[in-house]
């Protein structure tokens, strides 16, 4: 009997390490970053940044036909003392500092939102309770913008929890002052009809630490761009992600870490499980080490576990290095399947099939779920994953 382990299933994994004179990460985009949607042509689907995305399922977010109708999403923010929560207009000068939209939908969101939420944690405030931002979809179309800003040496945990049904394009800016520590958990626990596209920009201050955990479970189409840049030396970014892509769902995570400053660190770990016909996960991991970024230490990894036939993964890590004076740089991508041989092995030890699947998926995600550090949220997400697992097996 043949030894069957980690055979790729309906997957493609490509990777590259480029040593480039000019940034290919930048030139792969069809237009330079801009806040104005008019600077981006309407995508036709063959552009590098759109080639994995089913445009027809964006419900018009990409071509200007999706018009906000006031019944899009409700945002409720719960914050402990020491935090200022404001709703501001488009002209607020604090908005847009962490990053510029890199594709048409992000620019559409930036061009279309009417009000933004600004959450500010005062200098040196160390929060013991998380800030909870509930974004609940009410079935309509919405554009949004959020800014979370931590003063120097402030410490906070933020949970952004997306539920319900909506067609939403929204960007989030995270601005970390010197020595600040921010953990953000962004949960996409949408109904299976929702469409959510957004760009998350983190700008990390001197010696500051940013930890992001992106958990995508729901939605018809979710496409997120978590991006990191450093405002000064000594910054650290940890980017964790977990997705459970079900039958018919498209879940796409496009990371970019821009090592533009010396002596910064980044570590990205994204893991996904897929099951059912037409489940499609896309992971793009771009890491750019600019010529000035000596002493950079970076690693990125993507793992996928394909539970059934009919699911597809596209996993593309890109590492672009413009200086050799670095501590370390690496990437890894692997797609394996939970196959009949594994199921047979576990069953032959008395473990029923359903429990065998649960054991494997739970084990696969354990290291990421533990990163959240909020027991109530961890328990909810594990339960959700196990419910989805049962639903279509």
């Amino acid at each position, binding site marked *: *009997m*043949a*030894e*069957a*382990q*980690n055979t790729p299933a309906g997957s493609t994994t490509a990777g590259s390490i480029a040593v480039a004179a000019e940034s290919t990460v930048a030139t792969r985009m069809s237009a330079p970053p801009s806040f104005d949607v008019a600077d981006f042509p309407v995508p036709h689907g063959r552009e590098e940044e759109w080639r994995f995305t089913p445009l027809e399922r964006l419900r018009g977010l990409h071509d200007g036909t999706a018009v906000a109708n006031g019944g899009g999403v409700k945002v409720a923010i719960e914050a402990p003392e020491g935090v200022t929560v404001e709703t501001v207009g488009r002209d607020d000068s604090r908005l847009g500092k962490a990053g510029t939209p890199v594709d048409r939908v992000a620019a559409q969101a930036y061009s279309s939102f009417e009000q933004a939420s600004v959450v500010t944690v005062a200098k040196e405030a160390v929060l013991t309770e998380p800030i909870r931002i509930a974004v609940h979809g009410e079935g309509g179309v919405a554009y949004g913008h959020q800014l979370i800003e931590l003063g120097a040496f402030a410490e906070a945990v933020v949970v952004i929890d997306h539920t319900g049904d909506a067609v939403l394009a929204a960007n989030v800016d995270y601005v970390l002052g010197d020595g600040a520590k921010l953990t953000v958990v962004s949960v996409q626990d949408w109904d299976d009809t929702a469409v959510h596209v957004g760009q998350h920009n983190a700008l990390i201050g001197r010696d500051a630490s940013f930890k992001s955990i992106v958990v995508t479970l729901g939605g018809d189409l979710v496409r997120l761009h978590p991006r990191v840049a450093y405002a000064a030396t000594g910054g650290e970014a940890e980017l964790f992600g977990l997705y459970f892509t079900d039958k018919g769902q498209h879940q796409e995570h496009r990371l970019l870490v821009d090592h533009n400053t010396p002596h910064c660190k980044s570590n990205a770990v994204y893991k996904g499980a897929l099951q059912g016909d037409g489940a499609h996960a896309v992971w793009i991991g771009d890491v750019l080490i600019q010529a000035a970024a000596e002493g950079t230490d970076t690693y990125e990894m993507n*793992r996928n*576990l394909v539970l059934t036939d009919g699911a597809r993964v596209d996993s593309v890590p890109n590492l672009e290095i413009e200086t050799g004076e670095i501590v370390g740089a690496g990437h890894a991508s692997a797609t*394996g399947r939970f196959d*009949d*041989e*594994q199921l*047979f*092995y*576990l*069953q*032959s*030890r*008395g*473990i*029923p*099939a359903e*429990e065998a699947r649960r*054991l*494997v*998926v*739970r*084990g*696969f*995600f*354990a290291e990421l779920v533990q990163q959240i550090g909020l027991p109530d949220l961890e328990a909810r997400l594990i339960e959700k994953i196990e419910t989805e697992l049962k639903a279509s097996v």
Partner: protein
Amino acid sequence: MATLEIRDLHVTVEADNATKEILKGVDLTVKQGETHAIMGPNGSGKSTLAYSLAGHPKYTVTGGTVTLDGEDVLEMSVDERARAGLFLAMQYPVEIPGVSVSNFLRTSATAIRGEAPKLRTWVKEVKETMAGLQMDPAFAERNVNEGFSGGEKKRHEILQLELLKPKIAVLDETDSGLDVDALKTVSEGVNRVRESGEVGTLLITHYTRILKYIKPDFVHVFANGRIAASGGAELADQLENEGYEAYTKGGPVSGGNSGGAAA
């Protein structure tokens, strides 16, 4: 006393769009406390017998019966067979990404025993059994079979055998790929289980080497999908000297066997 009875077992496998019969009428009875060695050349169907007993979906039973204490094994799912007391130590155990050995062993023991083992005694039991197999305690935190050497995989299989205490243990080429030291250690593990007198062992092997450490009560020669001859331990010595040639040519069986289950 637990008894595994295999009667006129026929098994086919799909290969290259054709159905091929691999087992052509196997008869064998294994009782608790007995050790049977099944020896045969490559391709004779030994491993097919092992995997068919465990219920691997690749194999289709087209005729015959298998019962364990009178219960129809062939009607049971793979996990039901294990819970009924069948254990297969595999030649090629598969990697299970993301599942630690300790989590796997406990989940398995819970399923087999029908209740979760008490944590304190369980931890001690696992530690002692691992020590007996000369396994580093750190092994328990690794993912099941992931990056294991050949020897580590076999020790891990025998660790499960010792912890799960089946009624009938099928060991599929447990000796293959082991150096002499590892073979001794693994055999000692098997012998500890046999000494309890509560397990019937079906030892499938290509070589006589492991029989120096695990003494069989019965030796069966497997050829062309059935048992071609049966005898005592002396039959193994004869095979060591003469090879399988007399059996693979389908000719008459030479002396040295005491009759038995040959079809």
